[in-house]
């Protein structure tokens, strides 16, 4: 979580500026938002995917030709979704991509019809008593 700014120095006074970052410490070789073509928000539909929004593969996805033009990260996300319905947070962790990047990529997949994304129930409508009861019973039974 925190970057060890002293990493790579072995005594001998303060390190010269810029000398203390090696390999992975220096950050990813490909800057994360390069994968999205510099976009930091999902496309025109402008959906903001919640961390627990669930992503499902669309029942009627575009053909293999359209899939072939997707980038490797898009395809990686797609195959994760195919394996299991997953939340945005899980996808980000499994694909090892920042959540912000995953949101943009999912926006692309949504627009081109590869996936569907469930919107989390707004909190005002949320705790339906029956569901809460079910959650409590489910937790007890674990």
């Amino acid at each position, binding site marked *: 979580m925190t970057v060890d700014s002293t990493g790579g120095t072995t005594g001998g006074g303060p390190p010269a500026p810029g000398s203390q970052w090696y390999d992975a410490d220096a950050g990813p070789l490909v800057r*994360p938002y390069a994968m999205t073509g510099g976009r930091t928000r999902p496309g025109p539909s402008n959906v903001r995917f919640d961390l627990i929004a*669930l992503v*499902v593969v669309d029942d009627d996805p575009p053909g293999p030709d359209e899939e072939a033009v997707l980038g490797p990260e898009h395809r990686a996300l797609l195959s994760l979704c195919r394996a299991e*319905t997953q939340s945005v*947070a899980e996808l980000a962790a499994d694909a090892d991509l920042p*959540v912000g990047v995953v949101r943009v990529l999912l926006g692309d997949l949504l627009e081109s019809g590869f996936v569907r994304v*469930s919107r*989390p129930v707004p909190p005002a409508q949320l705790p339906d*008593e029956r569901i*809460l009861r079910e959650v409590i019973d489910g937790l007890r039974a674990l």
Partner: protein
Amino acid sequence: MAYERSDSPGADGGDALALKILVAGGFGVGKTTLVGAVSEIRPLRTEERLSRAGELVDDTGGVDRKTTTTVAMDFGRITIRAGLSLYLFGTPGQDRFWFLWDELSQGALGAVVLADTRRLEDCFPAVDYFEHRKIPFVVAVNCFEGARSYGARDVSRALDLDRGTPVVLCDARDRDSGKEVLIRVVEHAGRMHTARLLDTVG
């Protein structure tokens, strides 16, 4: 809303329901431990890289002035049944990531504030945060070995909690103990929701 496809359990995300509970508290109080103890998946850490708006993006004067920061959040999942899952998010401990809390807390069912009686003040910010936003929370006192034990009422008074905010003693390493904490959160969220409904009618 209520239908469920029987052929593929949980596969139909369109109608699946995901609930979110936050786990907050000071640094090193046991948030990751608690999430790990109750989650059915290994604790995943999701990272969000953040661009700091307003900082000079092209500043190459020194790498210590990084324009992106990596924040790790722990999270876990508990599947209640096909199509109903509970997600747990450990909130980032450092103060400078407060703005992430707003995103995390949106739509949250409730929260756990983990506390250590040896440094109770560490959980003040979390208590304030949830109180101000009217997010139902329980305070779970992680009973560390070697820490003097206090009763729930002492902790409640020391934190100046609103009446009705539950305080539970727990062992964050223990699965059953963690489950009990989550049950209290869900119960409390249900009570607060009912009270709010009554308010709007009355």
